[in-house]
């Protein structure tokens, strides 16, 4: 069965750590980092990258448009 594997790139300097993407992710991929960016925000990152399906939900809700999403079909 064809399955999607995804990955996101967070522009961490522009991320404001609002956490809305964390809630929007259906597979629990994203967390806020312990470290902060130059503005002092705990930026979003893939804590659990293996679970990402590339569904784009995180990017779709991101108020600052900082998430780029990639998706590839892989064989199960």
């Amino acid at each position: 069965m064809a399955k999607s594997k995804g990955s996101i790139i967070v522009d961490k300097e522009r991320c404001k750590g609002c956490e809305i993407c964390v809630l929007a992710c259906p597979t629990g991929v994203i967390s806020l980092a312990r470290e902060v960016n130059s503005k002092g925000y705990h930026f979003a990152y893939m804590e659990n990258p293996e679970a990402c399906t590339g569904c784009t939900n995180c990017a779709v809700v991101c108020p600052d448009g900082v998430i780029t999403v990639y998706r590839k079909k892989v064989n199960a």
Partner: protein
Amino acid sequence: MVENTGISDIVKDENLVYQKTKVLTDKVMHYCPGCGHGTAHRLIAEVIEEMDIQAGTIGVTPVGCAVLMYNYLDIDMQEAAHGRAPAVATAIKRLMPDKYVFTYQGDGDLAAIGTAETIHACNRGENIAVFFINNGIYGMTGGQMAPTTLSGMKSSTSPYGRDVQMMGNPLKMTELVAQLPGTWYVTRQAVHTPASVRKAKKAIRQAFENQKLKKGLSLVEIVSNCNSGWKMSPVEANKWMVENMFPFYPPGDIKLEGKMVGKE
């Protein structure tokens, strides 16, 4: 067994499924973390890119938090005086009827100081799109009571909660303008979840597409959060919005193709 596909195999141009639209500039938005303005801006920009109307669109920005919207959208824009955006947009559209013209206004701008301009642009049936961000508070000036502040809701000028006996009632501008013969499409949306964002984007697209019909004004209200004004975290603010704003400002279509939804 899943193929051993690493991130470097996925992050390739051919696998790109979502990136920030080029109609948004690279400038970091000044909005607070989690603010719905950023999402609403992005959706408008995405629709402009998808319809390929960057050269054909003129936007009018309000006074309020979104006053600097022109820094973020790579289109020609005018900054209107407080509340006057529908009058400004009226002239733009009348002089350049083939352009796509929109206003972007907050609740103070559209529903308080600009009530007359809003109602008359709607009633004249100007062929423009009005995007109305309703977060029930004056964000820019520091959280004062807005015309849309809920009964009992605290703000810096209703510190014990809005007392409707003393301060008047919250105003449902969207339902009000839907009554006017000049409006063609009136809807209320939100941008707090992936599903709501996708629906809101469809509504914004519709409001742009409607301008081709020349049948009247399209108004898209977006119920939004103001976590700084409400003094909550972004996630809490969205939850509070669903529990408190939605019962009074329910999302959904109010008028479609010039007809009230749910009425004969």
